[in-house]
């Protein structure tokens, strides 16, 4: 029970870090702008500008935190539980893009958001580790 709670808290933190990270990256990269030319020097110039943008760096750090939390989850929970649960990130990113950046969400995308939410609720019901919940009391 205690472990289920820990899993949900770390999952929530990971999803928040991912959503905030993507938002920050997207916001920062819009002001960096697309590469002037799709050549190696052109791309390199974008990387240079991006690395001097505070929102891009903050986004990168948040995504690193996300990855660390993802690894922490895998240290005790099933991969077949964590992976679908982490997909909530897609929903959060889409909603944040809509609310904060004013990006439009099409009808098909709303349907996808609904399906991911239903799937996550189903997987959530199975608990972080399929066997530990029922059999071993460790």
């Amino acid at each position: 029970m205690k472990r289920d709670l820990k899993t949900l808290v770390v999952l929530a933190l990971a999803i928040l870090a991912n959503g905030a990270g993507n938002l920050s990256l997207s916001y920062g990269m819009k002001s960096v702008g697309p590469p002037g030319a799709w050549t190696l020097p052109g791309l390199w110039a974008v990387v240079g500008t991006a690395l001097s943008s505070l929102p891009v760096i903050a986004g990168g750090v948040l995504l690193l935190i996300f990855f660390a939390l993802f690894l922490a989850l895998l240290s005790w929970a099933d991969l077949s539980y964590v992976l679908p649960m982490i997909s909530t990130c897609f929903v959060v990113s889409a909603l944040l893009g809509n609310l904060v950046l004013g990006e439009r969400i099409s009808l098909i995308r709303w349907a996808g958001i609904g399906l991911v939410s239903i799937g996550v609720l189903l997987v959530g019901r199975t608990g972080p580790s399929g066997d530990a919940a029922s059999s071993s009391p460790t």
Partner: protein
Amino acid sequence: MTTFLLVGVIVLCFSFGDIALTRGMKQAGEVSSLRLAVLNEVGGRAIRSPLVLLGGALQIVAFVTYLVALSQRDLSYVFPLTATSDIVTTLAARYLLHERVTPTRWGGVVIVSVGIALISAS
């Protein structure tokens, strides 16, 4: 044709990367508390674990291949195809990691994958 080949590489690298990361982290030990000493200890073992490093490397290969695929085709074409990796990963978790995947969990994984495909296809 090459796009499908690239998607195959992406899906396999993501899936086996996740399998390696999971096995490595299970060996590194549970992050049992948020105390700095515990994080340091488990983190140190994780960073030195060959499986975690292999998993990280496979994720990087998958990501670079993904960028290559995106340079050829639209995001709305490539990304939904890579959503199949969740199903491949669940199969691998079942047979390689011997996780118990109940019918409820299978149902959830399939619905989530279809949902991801729809979100990115539009």
